[in-house]
């Protein structure tokens, strides 16, 4: 039972878990803010730019902190000492979704960077729509990851 595992977690794992969870929360906050800003922008270049900046200054640092925290707690919990076939499903789901989400985030940042530059010439709307779609897919992946981290399916 995950709650029991949490209850008996050694205190020196807590900081790593805190970095992992806070990073993930900031990442999700950045993605949600990006999607909201682009969807509600009504073509307003300033709001479109804010959407991309949210991804850059919140999503990217959040992803880095989430991944760093994940590796930190992975090593503390000693999962690396086990054969990969013995790893629980939730760990695999976490890895796949965080890596997939990272690739989507990177793609969204690149599309957004080009899109925001083109806004000055009146273009870039299509690229920022792509940013929105990529962010929504990444968000969906992270919702699955959060569910897996909480429910810990074996």
């Amino acid at each position, binding site marked *: *039972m*995950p*709650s*029991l595992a*949490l*209850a008996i977690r050694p*205190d020196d794992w*807590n900081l790593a*878990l*805190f970095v992992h*969870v*806070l990073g*993930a*929360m*900031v990442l*999700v*906050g*950045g993605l*949600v*803010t990006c999607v*909201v*800003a682009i969807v*509600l922008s*009504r073509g*307003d270049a*300033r*709001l479109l730019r*804010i959407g991309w900046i*949210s991804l850059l200054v*919140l999503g990217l640092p959040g992803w880095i902190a989430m991944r760093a925290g994940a590796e930190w707690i992975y090593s503390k919990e000693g999962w690396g000492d086990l054969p990969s076939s013995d790893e629980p499903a939730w760990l695999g789901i976490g890895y796949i979704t965080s890596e997939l989400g990272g690739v989507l985030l990177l793609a969204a940042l690149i599309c957004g960077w080009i899109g925001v530059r083109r806004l000055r010439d009146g273009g870039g709307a299509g690229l920022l729509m792509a940013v929105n779609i990529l962010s929504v897919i990444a968000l969906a992946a992270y*919702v699955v990851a*959060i*569910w*897996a*981290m*909480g*429910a*810990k*399916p074996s």
Partner: protein
Amino acid sequence: MSLDDWILALHLLAAFALVASMVGFWVVVAAARSAERPSGVQAALRLSLPFVVLNGIGAVGTLVLGIWLAFSLDGYEIWDGWIIAAIVLWAVAGAAGGRAGREYGQVAERAGELAGAGDAPDTGLAAAMRNPRATALLVVSTVATLLILIDMIWKPGA
């Protein structure tokens, strides 16, 4: 997977919704503060509506599902110090956040009026957007939310 496993997962998702909404509120405030014209302030503050909904879902979800878990799981009791601390912090975060929202709501109304009346830059509106009271309330709400996360991970006294 047991029902408690599902409740824990939903509790965690609600916590993410709560923190994501706080992140969103800060972006909205920063965007509104940097706007030059009332229409810009109004457009930025309009973004807060989805975050209000997300905040409500996160706040209710964390509390209700958290209380469920406190009663349902062996080893936890609702009167445990760290659980009571979390409930108190939850109330502080909600009260401060609600009051901050009302303050920024008044600014949004004023921005709408000014936007409809020529949309000229207005020093009073800029000052209202930088109101230290509203900022302080948002800071209190954010710090209380962060303390809940720390409390949930360290579980002091558990």
